[in-house]
């Protein structure tokens, strides 16, 4: 893995503007042909990813929006799903969005050849439903929370996110541990080193204060995460609790549609394979005495969990999209920690880490073997 290199730079007015400034300079120097950056919609109540070719429009970018309407990995993937383009593009996305992008790249769902990913220390995002209640006021609340690194109003999974400063893209803007009016520019790849050099940024500064602060925060969050998962586990463990937890599911599949790593072209649960004839349902009703409709909502959740928990980045998009307030993301984050832990895998940690399904190890998972053997 690449050893992180970084430089301490001066922040002009705020971090957002510093990132915008970097993007503009990069366009000037021909490092990028275009950038993908979040922008506020004209109505002012939502943020979307915009592919900007005209340099003069970059200034409208909001690199750190208060909410996540679209998961950034989906935006990056939309651009390059059918292969790399000729344009060199930079995408400004959060660490969990970066990690999802990396996972998608492993499955050929995005091509990062001509892409540069720029991430930043992430304070979390407000749940979209909360934000929409009063966008203006919530923008202020968010800005205030960023200053104090206060996560109480953020998505529940943001509050227990221990990877909010994980660097797995090319460049990362570190604000933790940086003195007033400064921030760190951190490079994680040859691409990142190259860009820094072209921008005249000397990656020779000491990153200790950032790393210490990141470690401290991540450890605190890890503790919170373990505690939260423990409490959650008692509520969802066992088949009865599990069915109960998903009992309100209306089978809308919103969670699947917004999930950045739900990469299937056609969801199995949307296909004809789960449409059975009346006789089959009657047989099932006969076996159990009765059968609920719509059927298989818990099966859908479990099927999705089985597929996605190895790649889940705990971004919380699914939970935001759930119209029935089911804590999908919290449940998935708990399962994901366990399944990924089994394979010493962290989704999106590195492009070089093969996904567990294809990584063959002679010795593994002895703990899953029959104890009587």
């Amino acid at each position: 893995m690449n050893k992180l290199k970084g430089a301490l730079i001066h922040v002009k007015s705020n971090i957002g503007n510093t990132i915008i400034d970097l993007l503009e300079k990069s366009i000037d120097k021909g490092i990028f042909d275009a950038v993908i950056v979040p922008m506020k919609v004209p109505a002012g109540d939502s943020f979307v990813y915009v592919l900007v070719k005209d340099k003069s429009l970059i200034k409208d970018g909001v690199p750190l929006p208060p909410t996540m309407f679209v998961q950034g990995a989906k935006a990056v993937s939309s651009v390059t799903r059918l292969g790399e383009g000729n344009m060199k593009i930079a995408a400004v996305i959060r660490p969990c969005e970066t990690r999802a992008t990396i996972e998608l790249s492993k499955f050929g769902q995005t091509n990062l050849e001509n892409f540069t990913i720029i991430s930043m220390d992430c304070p979390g995002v407000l749940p979209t439903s909360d934000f929409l209640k009063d966008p203006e006021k919530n923008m202020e609340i968010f800005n205030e929370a960023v200053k104090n690194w206060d996560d109480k109003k953020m998505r529940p999974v943001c509050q227990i996110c221990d990877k909010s400063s994980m660097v797995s893209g090319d460049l990362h803007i570190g604000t933790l541990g940086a003195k007033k009016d400064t921030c760190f520019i951190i490079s994680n790849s040859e691409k990142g080193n190259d860009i820094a050099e072209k921008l005249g940024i000397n990656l020779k500064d000491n990153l200790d204060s950032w790393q210490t602060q990141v470690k401290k925060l991540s450890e605190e969050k890890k503790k919170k995460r373990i505690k939260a998962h423990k409490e959650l586990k008692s509520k969802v463990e066992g088949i009865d609790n599990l069915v109960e937890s998903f009992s309100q599911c209306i089978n809308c599949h919103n969670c699947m549609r917004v999930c950045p790593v739900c990469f299937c072209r056609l969801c199995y649960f949307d296909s004809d394979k789960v449409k059975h004839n009346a006789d089959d349902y009657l047989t099932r009703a006969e076996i159990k005495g009765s059968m609920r409709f719509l059927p298989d909502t818990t099966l859908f959740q479990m099927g999705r969990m089985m597929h996605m928990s190895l790649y889940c980045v705990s971004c919380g998009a699914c939970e935001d999209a759930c119209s029935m307030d089911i804590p999908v993301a919290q449940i998935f984050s708990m399962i994901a920690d366990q399944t990924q832990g089994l394979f010493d895998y962290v989704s999106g940690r590195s492009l070089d880490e093969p996904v567990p399904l294809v990584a063959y190890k002679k010795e593994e998972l002895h703990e899953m073997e029959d104890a009587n053997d």
Partner: protein
Amino acid sequence: MERKIGVYICECGPNISEKIDIDKVIDAISPYEDVSVVEKFKLLCSADGKKFLEEQIKKNKLTHLVVAACSPKEHEKTFMEVCENAELNPYLFQLANIREQCAWITEDKNEATKKAIRLIKAAIGRVRYHSSLEKIEIDSIPDVLVIGGGIAGIEASLQLARPDRKVYLVEKTSSLGGLVKNFEKTFLGMKPVSDIVNEKIHEIEKNENIKVFTDSEVEEAIGFFGNFEVNIKRTNEETEPVELSVGAVILATGATLFNPEKNPEYGYGKFDNVLTSLDFEKMNLTGKILLKDGTTPKSVSIIHCVGRKDKEYCSEICCMYSLKFIRYLKDKLPNISVQNFYSDLVIPGKTDQKFYEETKEKNVDFIRSSNISVAKKGNQLNINYTDENNNKKSLLTDMIILSPALEPTNDASKIAEITGVSRDDEGFFAEEHEKLNPISTSTEGIYIVGCAKGPKNISDTIVQAEAASGKILSSLIPGRKLEPEVKTSYISESFCIGCKTCLSVCSYGAIIFDEAKKVSVVNEVICRGCGNCVAACPSGAATIKHFKFNQLYQELREAVK
């Protein structure tokens, strides 16, 4: 569709009937949905049994057949043939194993009966969802490509060549004969060998059904058993590669010696008169064993196991040829003193041991030792070593012969890549099964013989060359059509996300990627139905025919219900 499932329970003499209450099973199964007939029979695999089954299928107009009997390994094919004879598609049949997995593993008749009912219900649940699969036939090419012109490749070529079967023998060096042509005699019999090899080479040269390519390498080999497209390129000429079609490929690329310069303590390449076993064979073949200065050695030391620690395996043949060297030396220089430095002697078999005993009588020292290092002392070589009692000792000698480990030839990795044959931890080609399929590989129609799959003596190499030839002669018959596996995998275009995961796990190179549609496509003729792609596919797009999700689900559901 109206289903008429027939269930037939085999008593297997007393094997099943003593442990399972078959009448009770019949009572339990009979009322089952779609089951139109349930019968028992003494021995279904007998001629009478097969005739009975065939008549039953016809008489009852069965649409599906379940036989509850022994392991599918035993008689699945038998009953599938019965189906064919009765004009029922053989894939509309399911075998429930109530012998090995039921009757034979318990004394409890009651439990065995219950389990038998479950297994049969599971088979019925599954067979309902079976689809007919049709056999396909393809033309086969009887010709064979042999890679490597050593004794293994020579022998296989001679066995295989005939008027209706061409053999293409590709050798990377300028002449045939491999390592063996350097050997004056073979061990055990001490019979001349280089003459025999030369005779065989002559036979090959005059055989018009064998085309030899020397100074050539195989550049490409794509395809499947019965039909490989091969490219052969001359190494030192700028010519277009020769394109050939063959039905089978024999890998006879041999082995090479571990380079003793990697263990500098032996002084190889540093001091005169330190030879490898191959250097010594070549010198011996000239008829004169001489030191660098042209004088005759008075003493020779043979050091065994050079490089064994590096390679972490025993090279099997070095002890024996080291004994042969003693014979060479004593025959040519009767007064010479010979010492063997060894750590373990590997001398297996009824005749090898005798050869050792006889050689030992010729006044030779066998010194069990470790920590060997060689230094120059005057005109002689000084061997420092630790003996069995942990004493440090040294010995002066005129000449040292090193017996290095054998390792794969340096083109093994390229050939592995071209042919898709995997290699073992040591870098030799890996066989399909070390005991049960020792010369086959994971790719049907590609065989490994001789040292290409590990150090081996000449007689074992010949046996393997004959075995591979036998396999090819009996399966790749000129004019006969091939029937590839029908239980193959297929990839749904609408589910495939184009991640190419399946390409990386396919052992047979059976999947190609359609760049236009961005989806993976299975070549059904190459696919062997192993299921790797199905297990690895992240979007559930890959399915194996006959092991479809619903078939497994229904089987499982009945088994656990």
